[in-house]
């Protein structure tokens, strides 16, 4: 029996799994023992990766929608050449910016890079990714504070930290393999703190829980900062030696007084004092945030308000500390670093001539092949489709008809497009079901490449199953499409995932995320390697954190206190929409839009088949709503949808929570974005509700 160690492509932990294979069939799946992230444990999704494409199997050949609306299965060659022709026609007729793509953090970075090479480099179209829905906020927060998008931690810090503060993070459900490490390492004095409007599963397990009002975290952290300063509970030496902008920050937060905190956040002054004491008494305090922070209308500044707490108390660059963003997708870091969407591969803005030259050389292309500006963002792409400016969209392994905020706008976009191409493993997702060109690519179990996880760890994806001759990976589809589009020798250095890995590695040389010391084959079967790891270096520690020397990536090598006066809520509750609609993961077993996890019986037996929402019994009784009733929720965005009711006091009285795994949920979320990161504000939508059954 053959054993293949590979990377799980569900969440951002990128656990490693051992697949045991006989006669090209998976016999069993076990978590890789000794792997840095998940040493011998994995959640139910990863352990059931073998169920992919066992129940829902598309035709192995591409599917084209004919002018009369019917579908036809065609050969790969025909599908690629006709689609290339169509793309070139659209480009010719409407200009390069009429072509756009939505990529993914669910595939190896080699494929992302090649995809951008086509769309951004050659076609001069736009290409954003579902990372925009996920960790774009953290990217901008890191860049502002550290000078580079650099999550500073190792997941091992969970085991070392004596004060773990989760903000808008629910690892019990979102990152089970990590929660397991948190629990396992528990020392008697270790404190777990959760800050979240909802008494999430993690909050229920916390030693301290602070139920603040949705999107009031920024005010809480400014108030907390002020109180820490007043008490003198700050690390003046660290501030003086390694940071910039503290005195302005100090002056700024002076207005954030304890006596106002109740009105601003819903928390009592005593609770803020208690939290401050916990931070003061902790020897290794870590602050972890996830989508509760990232998906907001002023998310970047909120994330930076967390970073500020870590900086001012010296809780960074030491074991068990850090302002740490846990992200959502397995190759989020690969996407951020190498997808050539918002920055040059490996880092650097598009007007940085030194970086342009380095990248062009590494990529074996002339300078004109590099984009000259960041991509239009996801929201703008959707808007421009609906405005008739973007005519062709290529969607790769993401399901925006379901996951995009205010998702009816994407339905309209799909109808508006001249050409919708989808790469997917399923032909029946909300996005792929009616698309013009469907490419049935193989799942990650049959692909190779590299992932970079939330803690900057590179790990290898290797094929578990052999492919049939007619089966195509995304890489091959992109390559053939590139050829059909006429890229010719621009693809010379891009023939295989290994080629692209080596290009990307070269692009990182001398940059913060330099991984020139990582070998494409050498990483296979290892515990994964975090960046930076430079050529010639020897790996002495599998779990490394950044900034241990206090040197940051800013021009003056100091971390920056970044802050701004909180803005008014762009969509406040009103008489017409008096309740807050919050969203998030519902269960461990359900992944995002459930395209893959619908195939896992163990999951399907354990989850609701219908959209549901959590409502506080107090609110429900006032509206004569009971457990199991159906309610229609009407959103400020003009849409409404029906949900089954589950009564629970884990939500606040004016708050309704709905899991993201059902199409109904993002029907109700608004077209509101953080002004900097353009990440959607998924968490606080004003709504109303009424009982319908």
């Amino acid at each position: 029996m053959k054993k293949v160690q590979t990377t799980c492509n569900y969440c951002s932990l990128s656990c490693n799994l051992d697949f045991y294979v006989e006669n090209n069939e998976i016999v069993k799946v076990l978590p890789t023992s000794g792997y840095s992230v998940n040493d011998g444990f994995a959640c139910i999704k990863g352990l059931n990766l073998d169920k992919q494409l066992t129940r829902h199997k598309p035709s192995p050949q591409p599917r084209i929608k004919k002018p009369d609306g019917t579908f036809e299965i065609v050969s790969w060659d025909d599908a690629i050449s006709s689609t290339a022709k169509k793309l070139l026609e659209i480009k010719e007729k409407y200009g390069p910016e009429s072509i756009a793509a939505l990529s993914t953090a669910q595939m190896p970075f080699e494929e992302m890079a090649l995809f951008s090479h086509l769309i951004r480099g050659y076609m001069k179209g736009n290409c954003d990714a579902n990372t925009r829905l996920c960790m774009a906020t953290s990217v901008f927060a890191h860049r502002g504070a550290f000078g580079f998008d650099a999550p500073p931690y190792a997941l091992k810090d969970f085991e070392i930290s004596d004060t773990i503060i989760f903000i808008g993070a629910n690892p019990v459900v979102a990152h089970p393999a990590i929660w397991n490490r948190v629990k396992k390492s528990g020392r008697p004095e270790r404190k777990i703190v959760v800050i979240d409007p909802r008494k999430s599963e993690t909050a229920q397990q916390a030693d301290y829980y602070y139920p603040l009002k949705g999107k009031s975290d920024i005010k809480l952290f400014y108030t907390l900062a002020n109180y820490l300063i007043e008490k003198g509970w700050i690390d003046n030496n660290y501030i003086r030696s390694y940071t910039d902008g503290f005195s302005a920050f100090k002056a700024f937060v002076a207005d954030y007084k304890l006596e106002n905190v109740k009105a601003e956040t819903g928390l009592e002054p005593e609770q803020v004092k208690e939290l401050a004491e916990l931070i003061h008494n902790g020897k290794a305090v870590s602050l972890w945030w996830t989508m509760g922070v990232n998906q907001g209308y002023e998310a970047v500044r909120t994330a930076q308000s967390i970073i500020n707490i870590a900086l001012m108390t010296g809780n960074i660059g030491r074991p068990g500390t850090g302002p740490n963003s846990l992200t959502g997708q397995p190759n989020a870091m690969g996407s951020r670093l190498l997808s050539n969407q918002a920055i040059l591969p490996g880092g650097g803005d598009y007007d940085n001539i030194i970086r342009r030259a380095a990248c062009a050389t590494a990529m074996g292309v002339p300078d004109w092949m590099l984009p000259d500006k960041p991509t239009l963002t996801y929201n703008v792409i959707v808007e421009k489709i609906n405005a008739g400016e973007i005519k062709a969209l290529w969607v790769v392994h993401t399901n925006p008809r379901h996951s995009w905020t205010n998702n009816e706008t994407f339905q309209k976009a799909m109808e508006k497009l001249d050409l919708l191409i989808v790469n997917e493993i399923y032909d029946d997702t909300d996005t792929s079901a009616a698309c013009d060109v469907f490419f049935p690519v193989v799942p990650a179990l049959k692909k190779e490449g590299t992932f970079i996880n939330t803690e900057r760890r590179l790990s290898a994806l290797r094929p578990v199953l052999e492919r049939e001759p007619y089966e195509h990976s995304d890489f091959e589809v992109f390559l053939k499409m590139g050829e059909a589009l006429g890229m010719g020798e621009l693809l010379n250095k891009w023939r295989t995932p290994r080629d692209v890995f080596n290009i990307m590695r070269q692009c990182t040389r001398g940059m913060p995320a330099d991984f020139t010391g990582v070998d494409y084959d050498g990483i296979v079967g290892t515990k994964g390697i975090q960046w930076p790891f430079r050529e010639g270096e020897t790996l002495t520690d599998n779990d490394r954190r950044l900034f241990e020397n206090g040197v940051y990536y800013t021009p003056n090598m100091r971390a920056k206190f970044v802050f701004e006066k909180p803005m008014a809520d762009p969509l406040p509750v009103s008489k017409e929409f008096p309740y807050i609609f919050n969203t998030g993961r519902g269960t461990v077993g359900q992944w995002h839009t459930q395209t893959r996890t619908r195939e896992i019986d163990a999951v399907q037996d354990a989850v609701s088949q219908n959209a549901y929402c959590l409502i506080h019994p107090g609110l429900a009784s006032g509206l004569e709503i009971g457990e199991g009733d159906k309610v229609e929720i009407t959103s400020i965005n003009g849409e409404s949808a029906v949900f089954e009711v589950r009564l629970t006091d884990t939500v606040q009285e004016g708050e309704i929570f709905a899991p993201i795994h059902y199409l109904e949920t993002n029907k109700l979320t608004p077209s509101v974005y953080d002004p900097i990161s353009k990440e959607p504000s998924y968490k606080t939508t004003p709504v109303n509700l009424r009982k319908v059954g």
Partner: protein
Amino acid sequence: MNRDTIKKREISGRIKVDRDKCIGCLGCMSACIVSHDGHSPRNRVVISSDKVSSPIFCQNCDLPECTYTCMCGAMHIDPATGFVLYDADQCGSCYMCVMGCPYGVLRMNKIDGKISKCDMCVSDRNGQPQCVDRCPMGAIAVERGVQA
């Protein structure tokens, strides 16, 4: 046969379920798969018609139907622990135990076509049920103590 009128055997522990605490994370199923070499899980969590997450675990019954239905002696009561243990080598894959289990917790093991049966992790190096160890919510516990 009435459970109350029989002479109960001594048993060194039983899985006790607190359904109100279960969040349906399936961590118990993962733990079971992992601690039994990738074999099909011996426990399950299902959602009821009223949408309540319900962990279903082998109860090492006082009246173990799986032992009554087993025609090969594979399902047997271990004299040392009182657990109902399963001997795959002795098993004839007749699935009578699957039919007999009133909780519907027994299943076919996808790897060898035999039975997935909780062994209270007596075979695990950690020595206690790993589902209990890994439950984030404390919804499952081992109830110790000797039955009268």
